[in-house]
């Protein structure tokens, strides 16, 4: 399946570059014009045939559902029961359904990668012989859900350890073995740090008195000033 994606990617890239050539009116235009149609593989053709057969309303609903879940890399788009339901609803076989879902998510990922405009997306879809109403539905869904999807992809960072959650509790220390009659406020911060391979988050507990917390806050303010200077 992965190989198929790479092949599809090359085709898409060629199509995209072709579009760029047209826009910039470079001399490559004449050379490119002949080679585009040759590169559309049977996979995309097959997927397009299946998609064209789907009822337009069902297709629109399917699209919005896929848009919601395409950024979740680890989980598949639909659970097993949902896939079976889809098979009967769209009257597609298992292989056909998985091809359709793959193609749609691939198109979305490429649109996200290049941050394409809806009009350009519609044109590209029509070029691969998708029906006009389906292409329009796709580009409309991209226009509405696209920016959010891009935003979600942008938020995904991968690092060995990532801060998941911060919890805190504020105590008033009234006494200890070496000192009586204290009135010292004391804050405990919990940093839940998750890493890729560990089971659950690692919890780091840190204690602060008033002075230490103030110093920590000043450091956070310096970082914020740096972030502000970026924009």
């Amino acid at each position, binding site marked *: 399946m992965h190989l198929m994606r790479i092949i599809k990617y090359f085709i898409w890239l060629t199509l995209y570059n072709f579009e760029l050539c047209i826009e910039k009116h470079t001399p490559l235009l004449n050379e490119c014009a002949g080679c585009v149609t040759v590169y559309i593989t049977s996979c995309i053709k097959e997927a397009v045939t299946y998609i064209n057969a789907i009822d337009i309303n069902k297709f629109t609903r399917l699209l919005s559902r896929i848009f919601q879940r395409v950024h979740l890399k680890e989980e598949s788009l639909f659970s097993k029961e949902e896939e079976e339901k889809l098979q009967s609803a769209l009257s597609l076989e298992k292989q056909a359904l998985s091809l359709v879902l793959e193609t749609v998510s691939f198109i979305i*990922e490429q649109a*996200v*990668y*290049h*941050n394409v405009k809806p009009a350009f997306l519609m044109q590209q879809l029509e070029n691969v012989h998708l029906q006009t109403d389906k292409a329009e539905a796709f580009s409309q869904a991209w226009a509405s859900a696209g920016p959010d999807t*891009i935003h979600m*992809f*942008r*938020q*995904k*960072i991968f*690092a*060995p*350890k*990532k*801060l*998941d*959650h*911060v919890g*805190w509790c*504020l105590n*008033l220390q009234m006494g*200890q*073995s*070496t*000192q*009586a*009659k*204290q*009135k010292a*406020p004391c*804050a*405990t*911060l919990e*940093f839940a*740090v998750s890493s890729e391979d560990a089971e659950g988050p690692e919890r*780091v*507990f*840190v*204690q*602060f008195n*008033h002075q*230490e*917390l*103030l110093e*920590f*806050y000043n*450091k*956070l*303010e310096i*970082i*914020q000033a*740096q*972030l502000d200077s*970026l924009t």
Partner: protein
Amino acid sequence: MSVPGSAKGGVMAEGSGFLGGRIPVEIDAMARHIRDLDKELFRKILKAVVSAVEGKDCRDLMRSIAENSDVPEDRLSLIVAGMYSLLKEALRLPTSSLKQEVFKDDLRELRISEEFITDFASVVFGNRRAALEAAYTHQQPRLPSIEDLQWRVDVAISTSSLVRALQPSILMRMKLSDGKIHQFEVPISKFQDLRYNVALILKEMNDLEKRSILKIQD
């Protein structure tokens, strides 16, 4: 007999005062043995006991005192134990609740001589007090605190999912007082969360410290 400035009068025999309901055995014993002690020796022992209270190692000091003086060892150990207990108890109470005069009166009730009382009072109420209290904060049971915080702001220009990402992120490296080093990446949204929470705790702390219900005077 009436002791000036002491409202307690002869009540000390029952043991009220800063030492509590019953005078600890070692302090009582010390009070008795200290009477005929040489002043210089007393000062040396006091110095050793103060460094012990601070948490320093004073075995060499004690050994030299024991060897150079002619006080029998069991008597010396009673004196040292008594002085250590006395100082610990006196330092436990903050200066706002235990006043110097009251402290001196309590010691007079134990029948310790005046010059020794002045020496004790200078330890408990003098300049050394701040250093002693600082030593205490390190000894108390507590969770690790941040010793050092290093950070770095990165901007991801391009990733495998987006050709133009331009997404900032923060890398933090925390060194804690128990020696552990934690390095992790903080997404911007979590960083704002953290900043908000820390500001909230600071505000709560300020409110807490100002509230009049806590100005409980003892």
